[in-house]
């Protein structure tokens, strides 16, 4: 029975529902020690002395290490995996990133020392006895401030705090178009800094086997092979064959668990030094000051239009915060995952974007759900709405007028990407109908009778997913390939293990991939096992991020199954005494075309391993195939999101009363899982628009939003029930026709919500709002516009 396209309940749910998931912190190794990381309380300070003697003498303490000691032992710094070049061709500034700070701390939470003890309580107690003398220096947390003359210098290697000054597009063409445009719309906006906040805090256990010389790291990672490569080759100098990295059940990632973090290297190195397993688990307050953050842009954008409201040119200038150190993929986020997306769903013929990446005294910033694409979408969809506002045109109509038509694919944008397929107009109409867009004005009037300002907002988006063709990312500065691997291991009884390089941390791969295998090989899902997350088991894989698991990892599985079927046909041809060319495979059976003679998948599997009569010179035993899939292009999911909000005129309290999303993800394998992915993305996008904002104190660089008491996470009563629909156009270049769905919600929702809020406040003369639009911010905006204050 075909399972593809049906809402199959998840296979992984049972273990989670009975409390038998195995997350890293659930693992305990015999003889295990506990590590506590002492972190900087200052944003910027010189370390003038560290005295660990009292801590070392405390009860239960096994070791206390500092950065200087680790460096003296040959431990390297954390590497950056992407090199961006500036306009002038020079490579980005790439200052060192020691695993424990040496001489200087550069953000609140910068790790300074590690205390290792028999119990966690002993380690934490003793950390208070580590005496660190800090000489505080001025700090800068805001990237715009960091560029001003006289700003505190963050890294010696980056004068003026500039990491790189990058650009893309045709500046002359854009300036010419702006010069002759009927209208130029200009806007300054920010994209607020976010803390990813996967519900499982990061954790790591290092282990060393003295007998074999083998290290094992259990870690909360989205990509165990990437961690093995970076930590083994660059930080600890351990060859791959002696380093196993296991990422077991992982409690959400959203990007923040892609990167190689200092704690992974610290526990692995310490386990080798001490000959005992060492475990570290973040407290949530540590997560806030050590997990890579997301977004944090300040942008100026100009959109030029002709007299028919057609887009002529887009010019974007962005300042992007990198934090104090370059996280693993940080440099590519505000460049190649951002600037290349600025055509959006539109035919804008000329586009120019420049991005200055800036060091500040803050936690490193890297990819967070959507990564660059939400920032691109937010500025595009805000400037389009502002243009509609200035022209006096329905924002839906302005979008329709500028959409890339469904007949224009493949479509080459002026910013490097070639979109393979899409149908933006139909998707928008679906969303408008589902949201009853045309009936909105009646609802606005009704809301006003209740003291509620009601607004509606549209956002359309395009994203580049299925990351990525290795050749393309290599030419853009990636220091890694971005293929995916799969091994399909058919067992003698016909059951199948699939070893995938993709990693599931909530995405439900055990279910979706099983559906794929079940339908293709014609075997029941119960006979299929999906294995991931352990470098000792799976082929070298690149992991899960950028909505790539099905498009790249799933395609690798298809390729491996194709090889299995090809070999199965050879075996069946021998069994059936037929020509291989006459054997076809369908519904789990190898048959001789035009006859009723056939062999089941199970019979062929058994023959592969019991080859008593096989012609060994032509056919080697076994049915176990590996494939690597490197995509030809990105995939391009797209969609239209419509938000409807009410703002209480007296309190500024916002209610999201409707949220409609119509998306094109290509072929859908499991609609239940796809819906869940969209819901979660929308919640994060709505969170960014209304609630979430990471705030540093401007003067001191202190992290003001360091816990759930201060950082507003979206809760159930902040969110509406979502209305979803899909409009499918197939990806043209992967075997499944799939595009990816993991990031869509977080990309579309911030602009849709903000456009709705601005629409609600339009009667008061409000034309733009920065995120997060908290009740306090909205209340202030309402007060200012109700009672204008004299300028003097």
């Amino acid at each position, binding site marked *: 029975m075909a399972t593809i396209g*049906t*809402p199959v*309940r*998840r296979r*992984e*749910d*049972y*273990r*989670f*529902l*009975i*409390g*038998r*998931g*195995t*997350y890293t*912190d*659930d693992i*305990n190794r015999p003889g295990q020690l506990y590590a506590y990381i002492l972190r900087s309380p200052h944003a910027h300070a010189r370390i003038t002395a560290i005295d660990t003697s009292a801590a070392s003498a405390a009860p239960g303490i096994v070791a206390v290490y500092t950065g200087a000691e680790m460096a003296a032992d040959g431990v390297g710094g954390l590497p950056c995996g992407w090199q961006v070049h500036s306009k002038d061709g020079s490579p980005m500034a790439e200052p060192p990133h020691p695993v424990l700070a040496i001489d200087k701390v550069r953000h609140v939470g910068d790790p300074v020392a590690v205390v290792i003890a028999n119990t966690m*309580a002993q380690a934490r107690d003793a950390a208070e006895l580590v005496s660190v003398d800090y000489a505080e220096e001025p700090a800068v947390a805001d990237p715009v401030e960091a560029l001003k003359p006289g700003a505190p210098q963050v890294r010696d290697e980056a004068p003026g705090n500039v990491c790189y000054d990058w650009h893309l597009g045709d500046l002359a063409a854009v300036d010419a178009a702006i010069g002759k445009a009927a209208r130029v719309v200009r806007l300054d906006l920010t994209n607020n800094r976010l803390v990813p*906040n*996967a*519900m*499982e*805090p990061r954790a790591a256990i290092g282990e060393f086997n003295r007998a074999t010389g083998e290290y094992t790291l259990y870690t909360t990672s989205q990509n165990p092979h990437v961690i093995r490569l970076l930590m083994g080759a660059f930080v600890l100098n351990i060859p791959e064959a002696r380093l196993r990295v296991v990422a077991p*059940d*992982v*409690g*959400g990632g*959203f990007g923040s668990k892609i990167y190689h973090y200092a704690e992974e290297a610290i526990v692995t190195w310490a386990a080798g030094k001490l000959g005992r397993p060492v475990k570290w688990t973040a*407290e*949530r*307050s540590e997560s806030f000051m050590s997990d890579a953050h997301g977004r944090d842009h300040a942008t100026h954008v100009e959109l030029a239009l002709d007299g028919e409201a057609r887009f002529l040119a887009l010019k974007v200038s962005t300042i992007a915060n990198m934090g104090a150190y370059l996280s693993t993929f940080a440099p590519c986020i505000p460049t190649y995952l951002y600037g290349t997306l600025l055509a959006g769903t539109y035919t804008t013929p000329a586009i120019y974007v420049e991005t200055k990446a800036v060091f500040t005294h803050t936690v490193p910033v890297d990819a967070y759900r959507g990564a660059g694409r939400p920032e691109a979408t937010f500025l595009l969809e805000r400037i389009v709405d502002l243009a509609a506002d200035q022209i006096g045109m329905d924002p839906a109509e302005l979008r329709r007028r500028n959409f890339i038509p469904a007949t224009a694919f493949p479509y080459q944008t002026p910013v490097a990407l070639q979109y393979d397929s899409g149908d933006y107009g139909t998707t928008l109409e679906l969303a408008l109908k589902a949201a009853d867009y045309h009936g909105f004005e009646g609802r606005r009037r009704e809301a006003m009778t209740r003291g509620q300002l009601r607004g509606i907002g549209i956002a359309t988006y395009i994203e580049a997913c299925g990351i990525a063709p290795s050749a393309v990312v290599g030419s853009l500065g990636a220091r890694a390939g971005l293929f995916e691997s799969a091994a399909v291991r058919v067992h003698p009884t016909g059951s199948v293990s699939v070893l995938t390089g993709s990693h599931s*941390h*909530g*995405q*439900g791969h055990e279910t979706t991939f099983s559906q794929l295998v079940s339908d293709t090989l014609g075997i029941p899902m119960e006979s299929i096992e999906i294995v991931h997350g352990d470098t000792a088991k799976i082929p070298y894989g690149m992991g899960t991020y950028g909505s790539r698991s099905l498009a790249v990892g799933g395609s690798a599985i298809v390729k491996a199954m194709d090889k299995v079927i090809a070999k199965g046909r050879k075996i069946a041809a021998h069994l059936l005494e037929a020509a291989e060319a006459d054997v076809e495979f369908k519904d789990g059976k190898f048959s001789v075309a035009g006859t009723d003679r056939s062999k089941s998948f199970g019979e062929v599997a058994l023959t592969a391993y019991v080859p008593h009569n096989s012609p060994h010179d032509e056919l080697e035993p076994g049915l176990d195939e590996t494939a690597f899939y490197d995509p030809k292009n990105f995939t391009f999911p797209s969609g239209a999101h419509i938000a409807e909000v009410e703002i209480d005129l007296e309190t500024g309290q916002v209610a999201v009363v409707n949220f409609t999303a119509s998306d094109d993800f290509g072929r859908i394998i499991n*609609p*239940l*899982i796809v*819906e*869940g992915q969209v*819901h*979660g*993305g*929308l*919640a*994060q996008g709505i969170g960014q628009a209304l609630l979430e904002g990471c705030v540093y104190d401007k003067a001191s660089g202190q992290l003001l939003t360091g*816990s*759930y*008491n201060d950082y507003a*996470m*979206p*809760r*159930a*009563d902040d*969110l509406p*029930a*979502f209305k979803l629909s899909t409009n499918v156009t197939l990806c043209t270049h992967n075997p499944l026709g799939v595009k990816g769905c993991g990031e869509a*919600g977080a990309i579309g929702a911030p602009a849709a919500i903000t456009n709705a809020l601005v629409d609600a406040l339009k009667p008061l003369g409000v034309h733009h709002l920065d995120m997060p639009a908290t009740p306090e911010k909205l209340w202030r905006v309402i007060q200012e516009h109700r009672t204008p204050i004299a300028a003097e």
Partner: protein
Amino acid sequence: MQKTVSLSVNGKPVSATVEGRTLLVQLLREQLGLTGTHVGCDTSQCGACVVHVDGEAVKACTLLAVQADGHSVLTIEGVATGDTLHPMQEAFRNNHALQCGFCTPGMVMSALDLVKNNPKPTEREIREYLEGNLCRCTGYHNIVLAIAEGAAVMRGEAPPPNVHGVAAE
């Protein structure tokens, strides 16, 4: 200061020696090996550690182990009957109400507490009750549907039609 505590966990008597500062969640996870109860924050906000103490939902990170001495604790590991999921757990499966699974044990324990006090909660009541449970994966949409379904089955009613088209098993 060490103290020996004796309590009932999932219907079985247990005793353990704990420090005065040991939290109930630490006792459960680290000494009793019941790792289904999770720790997601350090400010009693996230609700990943919700258990029942004498039938009341409690965040196990806010109770000292010594305070549980002599009391009866139910954790997620004690909710199913053998291999048969509780109707609330089943409803979470039927509605794809979990993704990474980390918040799930706390969500289920809170949901059971809600339904005990309010057998027929409205959507709004479910959303408001979940104030103390954070989920970063699901956007809560399917959790709300699951709790409504679980509540209906616990009332002895037929579950509402599954909006996702998931067939009953």
